[in-house]
């Protein structure tokens, strides 16, 4: 009954188009012979080949991009802080100057300190102190050494 109703509707729509009415029902385009016999197998072959596709790293997927970014930031942070640690240990070596060594000696830690360590540290401090001199300081020293005679130096001491 529903089909009859539809059929009537379709006829009514073409009542003012007799040529279209006459051509209705013609199969317009023909598929090649046996096309539909092989269509299913062609589709199945394509489905199988898409299932076997190689793993592709979804670089542009948001989740993957976020993960990569986080990993990069962590790597940078590790490199930065490990360099920072090295600097700190340098600073610590510098900070362990003579006042600290004195304190350690007074409090009894001197027993654990080898004399070579203390002297090395003091030498390092001296070298660093000397290397931090400016050109004008060096020139002044040379001048004083050249200007002052031995007698004056002894008198000064």
């Amino acid at each position, binding site marked *: 009954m529903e089909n009859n109703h539809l059929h009537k509707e379709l006829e009514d729509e073409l009542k003012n188009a007799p040529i279209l009415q006459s051509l209705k029902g013609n199969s317009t385009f023909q598929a090649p012979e046996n096309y539909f016999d092989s269509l299913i197998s062609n589709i199945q072959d*394509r489905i199988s080949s898409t299932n076997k596709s190689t793993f592709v790293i979804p670089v542009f997927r948001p989740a993957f991009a976020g993960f990569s970014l986080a990993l990069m930031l962590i790597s940078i942070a590790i490199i930065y802080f490990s360099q920072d640690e090295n600097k700190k240990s340098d600073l610590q070596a510098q900070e362990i100057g003579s006042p600290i060594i004195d304190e350690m000696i007074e409090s009894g830690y001197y027993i654990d300190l080898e004399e070579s360590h203390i002297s090395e540290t003091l030498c390092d401090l001296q070298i660093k102190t000397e290397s931090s001199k400016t050109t004008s300081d060096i020139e002044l020293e040379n001048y004083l050494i050249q200007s002052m005679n031995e007698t004056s130096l002894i008198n000064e001491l």
Partner: protein
Amino acid sequence: MAEQSDQELLALFRDSNANAHYAFNLIVKKYQLRLYNHVRRMVIVHDDANDLVQNVFIKVWKHLEGFREDSQLFTWMYRIATNECLAFLKQKRKRYFLPIHDVEAELSQKVSSMVPFDANKLELKLQQAILSLPEKQRLVFNLRYYDNMKYEEMSQVLGTSVGALKASYHHAVNKVEKFIKPD
């Protein structure tokens, strides 16, 4: 053997004890001719229609498991097929930098060169008339005139209201009839 209904085919596909490929093949067998004709009428050339039809069924395979049945199976497949055709035609325009009417003119020329139409000039004129319609109107005309699709189903396929579809078809019929009428 009586053709199985869409509900039966879907149930068979989802049945864990049954072979999903077997159920899918039954779906392909049921709809391959209709979908092929629908696509072929839009893109004209068989090779293009063949590629698109295969694409349609592959998408059906991929998404059938999640099909929510808020529309009928065949309207859902028709919608996929329609979208494939529209995307194909859009891509064709971009590739050749052709304005819209040139693609249709190109298809119209291809229709002219097809063997079956040599014998039937009126049929050829009809196809050229349909190709002169705007894309969406061409879809409406094909679905109603050739597939005898109900407007309610067509509305699900095209996402357009029933009223708009009726009006569109009415105008399309007038235009095509005027085109093919002998001078």
